[in-house]
């Protein structure tokens, strides 16, 4: 029989101080029974002799210091996982909320996971086709990568995430694929958009959803990504599936982290976020990758909204230091009606070199990527110059590049929400756009590829 304590000495924000406790372990799971019988869960943040500091995931509202009973469960937070979780919806703490029966776990796992040994990792190198040109060609995603989307308030990141979840595939492979979706503090509407989109397209059958809404307990958000990643690790490394994990919105997660830190009166780092936020985020993001000799993989796509579209804010900043690149959305493109509004110049996929080329995508991929990005940058420079000096002041070549930049945004970046472009289609569009530039300006593509892929090049050579 577990000991029960009715010795709560202090309640502050999401934290409880319980006194006269015996043998409490750090990080232990705690159950608090309220006067009405309601159960709330928490974890031990600090275990001292006779005292324990407990963080409650469901908050302390309505908690009665005299009546509430605290039990220490003698284990860390665990999640019972099973392949039956596919197709189900859970709350942020892993309890079913879709009206279905409880999941019978095949195994119970510590949600904190363990750090993956770097010597056991396999380097990510398989191209994932998302069907979105600005990602596939310019910032390709590979299996086992963690590539966040840096968005801003009001930008269409939910649509993009849903589109990626629907379309993502590894070419030529018929392997088990799953999506684990964790929502943290997003609105009902946004969550509903995802769930109904998954249902409508049938994607839900291969998806596991963890949903913590904006009005759900704030601190529960700290558990949500861990629940999702524990599930993902099970599916990937025990069941050999390729798992795409979408975490949205990491900004809300970090806010919850700050709330706990403030309640503990810790010394704050930048902008009031705790000094250990980097470590904490790394514990989430690093749970992506591949393991040598195992078939499965975890690819992460965290989404965060940059406060004031500021990339240097601690949340995007620390994220960028951990993840392998970032896809940045641009308000300017969005305002011009371009979907997906991906800022190609600022986005980056660090693993791109490993994922592209012959056999993976197409031999000309690297050339097209380099040439398009160089030409687009030059076009944007010309555009800036035209704003200052007027278009008439541009040289003829610069005007060509300016036209190219416009066409690039309209034809290459822009595409439909349900438009699933193959990498060949994407690269071909790239070549069509390049064909409008003077041939002498195409310095970044090899002659061989130019001959083979540039529209009109073969005829010109034959003539």
């Amino acid at each position, binding site marked *: 029989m577990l000991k029960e304590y009715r010795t709560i000495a202090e309640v502050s924000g999401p934290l409880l101080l319980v006194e006269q406790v015996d043998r409490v372990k750090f990080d232990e799971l705690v159950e608090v029974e309220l006067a009405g019988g309601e159960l709330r869960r928490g974890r031990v943040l600090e*275990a001292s*002799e006779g005292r324990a500091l407990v963080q409650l995931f469901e908050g302390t509202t309505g908690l009665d210091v005299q009546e509430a009973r605290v039990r220490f469960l003698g284990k860390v937070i665990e999640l019972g996982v099973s392949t039956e979780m596919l197709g189900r919806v859970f709350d942020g703490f892993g309890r079913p909320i879709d009206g279905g029966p409880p999941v019978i776990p095949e195994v119970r796992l510590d949600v904190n996971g363990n750090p993956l040994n770097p*010597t056991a990792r396999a380097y990510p190198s398989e191209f994932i086709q998302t069907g979105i040109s600005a990602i596939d060609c310019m910032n390709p995603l590979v299996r086992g990568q963690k590539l966040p989307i840096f968005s801003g308030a009001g930008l269409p990141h939910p649509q993009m995430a849903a589109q990626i979840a629907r379309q993502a595939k590894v070419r030529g492979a018929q392997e088990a694929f799953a999506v684990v979706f964790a929502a943290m503090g997003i609105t009902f509407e946004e969550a509903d958009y995802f769930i109904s989109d998954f249902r409508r397209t049938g994607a839900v059958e291969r998806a596991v959803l963890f949903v913590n809404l904006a009005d759900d307990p704030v601190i529960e958000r700290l558990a949500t990504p861990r629940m999702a990643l524990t599930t993902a690790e099970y599916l990937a490394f025990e069941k050999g599936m390729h798992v795409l994990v979408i975490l949205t919105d990491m900004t809300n997660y970090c806010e919850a982290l700050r709330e706990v830190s403030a309640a503990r009166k810790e010394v704050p780092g930048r902008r009031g976020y705790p000094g250990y936020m980097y470590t904490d985020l790394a514990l989430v993001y690093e749970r992506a990758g591949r393991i040598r000799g195992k078939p499965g993989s975890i690819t992460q796509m965290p989404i965060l909204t940059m406060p004031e579209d500021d990339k240097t804010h601690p949340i995007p900043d620390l994220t960028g230091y951990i993840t392998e690149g970032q896809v940045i959305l641009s308000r300017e493109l969005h305002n011009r009606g371009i979907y997906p509004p991906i800022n190609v110049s600022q986005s980056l996929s660090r693993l791109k070199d490993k994922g592209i080329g012959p056999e993976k995508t197409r031999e000309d991929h690297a050339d097209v990527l380099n040439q398009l990005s160089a030409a687009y940058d030059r076009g944007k420079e010309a555009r800036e110059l035209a704003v200052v000096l007027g278009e008439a002041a541009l040289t003829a070549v610069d005007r060509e590049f300016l036209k190219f930049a416009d066409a690039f945004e309209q034809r290459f970046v822009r595409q439909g929400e349900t438009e699933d472009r193959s990498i060949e289609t994407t690269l071909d569009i790239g070549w069509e756009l390049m064909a409008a530039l003077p041939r002498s300006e195409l310095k970044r593509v090899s002659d061989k590829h130019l001959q083979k892929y540039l529209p009109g090049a073969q005829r010109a050579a034959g003539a």
Partner: protein
Amino acid sequence: MKGRVVKVAGPLVVAEDIPGARMYDVVRVGERGLIGEIIELRGRRASIQVYEETSGLGPGEVVISTGRPLSVELGPGLMSSIYDGIQRPLDVIAAMAGEYVTRGIELPGLDRERRWEFVPAVEPGQTVKAGDLLGTVEETPLVEHRVLVPPDVPEGTVEEVRAGAATVEQTVAVLKTPTGRREVAMLQRWPVRRPRPVGRKLPPVVPLTTGQRVIDTFFPIAKGGTACIPGPFGSGKTVVQHQLSKWADADIIVFIGCGERGNEMTDVLLEFPELKDPRSGRPLMERTVLVANTSNMPVAAREASIYTGITIAEYYRDMGYDVALMADSTSRWAEALREISGRLEEMPGEEGYPAYLGSRAAEFYERSGRVVCLGSSAREGSLSIVGAVSPPGGDLSEPVTQATLRIVKVFWGLDDRLAQRKHFPAINWLLSYSLYTSRLDPYYAEQAGPDFPENRTRAMAIMQEEAELEEIVRLVGVDALSPRQRLTLETAKSIREDFLYQSAFHEVDTYCSMAKQHRLLRLILAFHDQALRALEAGAPLEALLELPVREKIARARYTPEEELERLDALAAEVATQVGQARART
């Protein structure tokens, strides 16, 4: 007699009544025997930073002091290893415990079974003192491991040496010293937080050649020097560090992945055994030691990892090698320091970092240097440190960058605007500096060419002028410039694109010798000078800019190292073509 845990808060554990507790001694905490280090003593209480995850640990569990400070094992077998922050071999852990790093694993840093062929260098009766060579072992085909008299042994005579195969723990020599007989094995231990003693320090006068043009020519680092690379994410810090590990002309490389990405360490692990050492053609891994504490591994071990790395580096320096140490990234080390400090409830300095951040960073970087090693042979060794810094938001005014800049002599400022324009390495030439240039110039003048220092100064002046001219262009357009100024812009562009830009992924371009660097820069400047004279003689700028030789200059950086005479031929071509253009006017 055992101590007892009274409080657990993340990586910090407070314990009471540990018998014989001393500052920085290693303790074993709890039933699992987690490894920790005492970092504060107050009355009966000791604060311990624990190098492993502490969940499940509670008050009342036992704490035992090992009575020894945190130490590393030194001896043959270090090369090609990959260690975690407290020198546990990660490959052995993987073989033992599977894909995840689980807790409570205790493993020696060096293989106890493996036998090494010890070749004595002394004979019985010979007098030796600390630092003297006792014998050698072929550690890898690239590294001759020199077994030295440990620094704490007083002068004495050799009583016995044992040639032949031995494990690291077996005695290879017996010394007779005033304090008694002393058996010496190849295995030595050294506390990580204490610098290893040297004979004396020397001023740095020899460059650490890296094969990276922007570094070697413009912002060189000396052997035994210190450099830092701060830059926002995505600006290419890691690629620069990898390039340096691959190409720097050091004998030994120690690479510390401190709180960085797991996949990046995997990349190093997979790539280094494939890469060939440019001088010997052997795998690079044979002269490399990796210390990997990725961002998801316990935070306290991250704090220790840079000390583990530098102690190993010092050990090889003491053998008389040129050692280069890369730490990526020291910001994560500082953050670990901050986290522990916060949990100790110390009074914070700037941005929550402890007030001693600056002094700790200084202590670390001061362990670099070119030295005369201990011992009677006056061997020279050097230890150079290159530390990456990850300033939040790319803001260089933050405490870690500032604390680092106060100590290091070379600053390679990475610029994400350059990175966005795909200019790599994205080292901003106007922002960066090296305080070694004047000390190294005599060496360069002798090795590369007498005009080398002057060329660099001139090229730098052109880059400076470009920045000023660009201001004008932005305001009033390029037409407002004189032909001379426009030529300067073109030359600056050429320096940027044909010299400073260097592709890490191009077979030839990835490494550039000093001789080639010198020729390339001289070529660009020669064109500039001759074009300038032609311009003054009335030749139109357009004609000069359209000369076919310019295309060749742009491709000159792809010239293989064996065919450098082609660059001299190109210089002659510049003279002819510019001369012809001038004659046409």
